[in-house]
């Protein structure tokens, strides 16, 4: 039963609409021709992050594990993660509007899939109270989506973290392979808008001809 809903969650997490900065970082890792091992390492590092990665996932599961299904309780419990430097609700926020909409769509599909069993109560509650909870906590992100499913299906935290990390790495490697196949020609490389905010020293040059002469290369 969990296998079925987790498989559906895996498909949702693999969707293009839920690709985030970790996936983009993995593309960077391979675009110049590195092995997909570089993508796996990059994704593993990225999804250890405390904002949208497994740290947030685990924190979200702790925060919402025993909270009654009412918006005020959720808002009170999640208003600030006690283990984070930043005031944010783990599982919420740090997501673009498009991606937040994709998370909501994914939540609706997952709930629909589980509805005969009515077995995703937290996810269902979040969907019901989406406007209120988003205003209080920020939009649900992919880690939050996964956390609610894991809580609803009583997946242990360590298993949940491992599962989430593995799925993100899988997508990252696939995307990185595509980026590598496309090559640097299809990738921004010194071409982005860029604004340096620091001090600029005066321009000095080294005289290559003189240096070549000095080391005996003339």
């Amino acid at each position, binding site marked *: 039963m969990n296998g079925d809903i987790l498989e559906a969650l895996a498909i949702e997490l*693999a969707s293009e609409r839920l690709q985030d900065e970790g996936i983009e970082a993995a593309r960077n890792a*391979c675009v110049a021709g590195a092995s997909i091992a570089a993508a796996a390492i990059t994704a593993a590092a990225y999804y250890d992050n405390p904002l949208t*990665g497994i740290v947030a996932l685990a924190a979200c599961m702790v925060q919402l594990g025993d909270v009654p299904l009412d918006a005020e309780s959720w808002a009170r419990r999640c208003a600030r993660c006690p283990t984070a430097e930043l005031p944010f609700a783990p599982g919420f926020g740090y997501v673009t509007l498009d991606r937040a909409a994709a998370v909501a769509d*994914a939540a609706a599909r997952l709930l629909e899939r589980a509805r005969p069993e009515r077995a995703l109560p937290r996810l269902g509650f979040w969907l019901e109270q989406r406007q209120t909870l988003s205003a209080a906590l920020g939009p649900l992100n992919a880690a939050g989506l996964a956390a609610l499913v894991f809580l609803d299906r009583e997946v242990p935290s360590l298993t949940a973290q491992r599962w989430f990390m593995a799925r993100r790495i899988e997508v990252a490697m696939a995307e990185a392979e595509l980026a590598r196949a496309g090559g*640097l020609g299809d990738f921004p490389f010194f071409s982005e808008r860029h604004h340096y905010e620091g001090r600029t020293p005066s321009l000095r040059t080294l005289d290559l001809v003189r240096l*070549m002469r000095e080391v005996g290369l003339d």
Partner: protein
Amino acid sequence: LIDGGSIDAGSIDGGSTPASAGLQRAPELRVSAGIAHLGRQIIVHGLDLHHDCPGMSFVHYLLFCVTGRWFDERRARVFEQLWVASAYPDARIWCNRIAGYMGSARVDPGFSMSAALAASNSQAYGFRAVSRAYEVVSEVPEELGEREAWLSRQLEARRVLYGYGRPLHDLDERIPAALQALVDAGMRAGPALGRAFWLHRALGERKGKSMNIAAVWAAIAIDFGVARHEFDGFMLLMFAPGYAAVHADQSRRAPMSFLFGHQTRPRAPDASPAGAPPSEG
């Protein structure tokens, strides 16, 4: 353990004699790089770390650790300058950009460094290309008369000559900095560097292409007696200050503000890497 000594195979597997039958012997590490007698003495390739090595620069010490050989101060200083001259803290560079994403997401700096380093192990740019440049430079014949024929063979075979290929007018700014390092150390170009520049000139005449810094690094390493596998192991951390700078910069900024929402999708029209979302219902 360091001095070695012979152990017969039967004693290694621990199960071939009646006395040891059924017993699992502790595994044995055989090493030559060094050993830490904690609280007493740390030995690195036969030197006492805390007495013989404190005056070394980090790059010098790393070179010593990788090769097991002592390089004189001047050569170590040249490498030091090459490294400093090559660690660019520009977030647009692909491996640095990874560090930027990591800093922005508040990823642990150690993981960030690992990811950026892994990404640097790439073929188009990065350490695999640098290693291939070593191969190219080391193959250029010493005899001047043989070089033209060698180059013709490479070009006929359409071989990618790593270390070369920049447009002729587009000087790699690290090359004069590398030569300055030699000048500062009071050193002349060695024969490999001479061959590397010969190839630079020859490709400029034939193809309008010039060398990049990888050819210079490789040539200097060859001239200094660093073998290719040592070169591969030694050079890995040279970009690390760039990674660290970008990570630190983005760590100080608003979380997730680095290229937030930006997605590059160089995908084929029908590519769907891990499945599409299920249809509604």
